[in-house]
């Protein structure tokens, strides 16, 4: 178990390293000269040269990379080109907002998706057919559009929730809930649909296994077989989906934050992208990759706990 997790951890570190390095070189080499882009078309070449030196772009690429990597490893992601603030502190204030949405949505979707998928696999019939339909709708409707509809109906028209803005949890838990509930619901629909589908298929598959029949042959209570044995064996597949869905949710959160004007990584990423703020974009990619890696590690541990083949190798 420990060895398995250590291997996974090593892989995760390598992954985060490769993603950030790849992004660094992609952003440093492709496209127009960022100094000229920042100064606009009226800038003279002397002004551009000064700007390049100011941004540290006059140094050779390898030394810029090592510089950046050294900083990143110590938590210093550089200075934003458009705001002159520390990228690390900009991200630190915005990350909780995005994580509130993504984690809230993944928890809600997991509970909803696994429950619905499990029940419809056990009960079948009309419930199952309804779920199949809802799953396609949930999968097909774009999350940001659902967010737009929810915002229009429940915030703008009915005024039940604030349409824009964010209240930190530490300031007011109820205020916080009011500002994140609609975004979370908007994100949940599609993810819950996928998890429900995966759970349903997985439970149906386990129900067909020989050991379920053999467990039933021992006269065990129905619920014991269905809850303890079937659910536990069926849980691996939806967990695999959850880690993929979480990656998608980070992207979804970016969209939804813009609908509700939440000061998260998403709004920051969009404005940085528009202003070609390379250090900011790099920082966001690194934080995104690290977040994904941590979530995958957590899910791997749960997976190992569920599956003795992983644990006892």
């Amino acid at each position, binding site marked *: 178990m420990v060895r398995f997790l250590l291997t996974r951890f090593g892989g995760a570190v390598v992954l985060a390293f490769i*993603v950030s390095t790849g992004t660094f070189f*992609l952003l440093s080499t492709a496209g127009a000269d960022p100094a000229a882009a920042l100064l606009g078309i009226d800038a003279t070449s002397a002004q551009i040269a000064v700007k390049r030196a100011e941004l540290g772009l006059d140094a050779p690429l390898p030394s810029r990379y090592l510089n950046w990597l050294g900083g990143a490893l110590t938590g210093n992601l550089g200075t934003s080109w458009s705001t002159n603030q520390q990228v690390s502190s900009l991200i630190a204030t915005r990350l909780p907002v995005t994580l509130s949405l993504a984690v809230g949505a993944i928890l809600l979707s997991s509970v909803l998706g696994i429950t619905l998928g499990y029940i419809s696999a056990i009960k079948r019939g009309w419930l199952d057919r309804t779920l199949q339909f809802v799953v396609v709708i949930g999968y097909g409707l774009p999350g940001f559009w659902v967010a737009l509809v929810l915002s229009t109906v429940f915030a703008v028209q009915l005024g039940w929730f604030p349409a824009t803005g964010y209240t930190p949890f530490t300031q007011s838990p109820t205020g916080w809930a009011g500002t994140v509930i609609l975004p979370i619901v908007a994100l949940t629909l599609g993810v819950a649909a996928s998890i429900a589908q995966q759970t349903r298929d997985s439970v149906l598959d386990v129900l067909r296994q020989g050991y379920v029949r053999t467990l039933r042959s021992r006269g065990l209570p129905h619920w014991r077989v269905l809850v303890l044995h079937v659910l536990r064996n069926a849980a691996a597949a939806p967990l695999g989906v959850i880690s993929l869905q979480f990656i998608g949710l980070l992207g979804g959160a970016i969209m939804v934050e813009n609908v509700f004007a939440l000061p998260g990584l998403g709004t920051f990423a969009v404005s940085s992208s528009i202003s070609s703020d390379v250090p900011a974009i790099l920082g966001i990619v690194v934080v995104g990759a690290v977040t*994904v890696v941590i979530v995958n590690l957590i899910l791997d541990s749960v997976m190992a706990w569920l599956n003795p083949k992983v644990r006892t190798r």
Partner: protein
Amino acid sequence: MTTPAATPAPAPVRRGTARRLLANPVGAASSIVLVVIVFCAVAAPLLTSYAPSDSALKDVLAEASAAHPLGADGSGRDIWTQLLYGARQSLIAGTIATAVAIIIGVPAGLISGYRGRRLDTALSWVSDLVMSLPAIIVLLAVISRTGPVMPVVMVAFGLLTAPFFYRITRSSTLAVRNELFVDAAQVAGLTPLRILARHVLPTVRGPILIQGALVLGMAIVAQAGLEFLGLGDPSTPSWGTMLNDALRNIYVAPQLIVFPGLALGITSCALALLGAALNDSLSRRDTAAVRPAPRAKAPRAASATTAASSDGVASSDGVASAAATTGLSPASTAGAALVVDGLRVSYGATEVVHGVSFTVQPGEVVGLVGESGSGKTQVALASLGLLPDTARPVLRGLGIDGVDATGFTDRDFRRVRGTRIAYVPQEPLSNLDPAFTVGYQLIEPMRHHLKISKAEAHNKAVALLARVGITEPEATMARYPHQLSGGMAQRVLIAAAVSCDPALLIADEPTTALDVTVQAEVLDLLRDLQRESRMAILIVTHNFGVVADLCDRVLVMRSGEVVEQGTAATILTAPQHEYTRALLGASLDSAPSRRDRDRALTAASAVSSTDSSLTASETTHA
């Protein structure tokens, strides 16, 4: 039970698939919707009199009118026109991304699956890496350098979704690669390229189509999402920029979100539904003959007349009364370990067991013998109430250890399973729950039935393991099924079956999946346990060696009927029925492999039996 002898031919997407897709209402509806959307995009100039850039200050946020059937947006542009031209943008963007993803993903998957080894490891690693990237963040990074140039962004999106195609192509290629006919083709001197094109591509075409529909939908949504974020060209009409406009006017004109959102949602749902329908029609092709039958959880009691009719559902809502009128007379159940009277089992319209009756006396060992597909496993499972949900069992009477079980529901069966009637399955390793230790699986039924403490159950389980011949019982308690050999797993299953002291053990080919040396040991174990506890055994087998070794009496089944029964000695020495003689002859050949024996049997019974569907359905359900 037997592996299908025929080489699975590559299953190409035939014209039949397209027809089946359109016959499926969901497939037809989603195809029509998509055709309409494509038509709107192509014929946009014919369907509106405005140019996409036409705007008029007086029309800003205009309501629906004759001039503007859906109203006008925040810049005074006609919404209907924007929708039509927006469809173009969406379809072009989606097509670029999907094409790139297929062009990269499919060849990579083919090579990876076909060549394997290090290249496969490397490509799979890259694929996993790409899949763990949050796509939108990567696209924002791309846009920060290239600006919002949609074709470039969609190429990037194609690269990010290529792993979807890589994975399905790789796994299909791997599966085909391991089939015999690829080896044969190699021997015949075909180049890898021709083998891939001839044998592999046809099988992956279906999954690629399904995935293509899904990725197309994802790309269209992603493109609209980026433009919605303001990362598009505001002068080019698209559904995303329309939604961006709607968000800016959300307080004054909330209705603006409706039409672009619907267009996007309908397109994306239609593609998802098309994918699902494609999946259906492709998998339907593989299992064309199997139609789901109405569900039946437990054998239903039925009068002799309804049992004879093909539709035997008559008494399901009157189980009690039916049991009272058609159940067993107390005299016939009294004392017997198992009484089966008039059992019929059908799957859909196909009946696979045609009225089987027999009795197993206490302490008696009865062999149920027949070739694969004779229905013997169906009889065994029906006695336990454990047939698959698709099966429809009908019987005149059932008695288990003196209890009238006619018309038992699943709940009723649970009271006798484990304590009065127990089951040993055929494949030991797939019949232990992989997620729990051996100890847990032994203790669980004892605690439930015998109401004993955990410690007591643990000690009993250790003793049981020792009794069934496991050398390290304490250590084995803590092991998981994947750490056991087949023979050990079967001993554990036997221990679990006898743990609550059943009067009758039903063993379904308990040695078939084991090595020859282990087979004899397991049979010895069963015989010893039977002698110690005087429990009755109904043993399903195709092997007359087992019969000679163990059985007091034998029932010979063919095509769902008992053709002969008698004492083991009589059947072995003086078989009356020609089928028994054929079985016996095939069984006594020197060291026959299963395949040889099955082939011999098939040849022997081909003369009188034409029911080939039977084999198919037992293969599926047994």
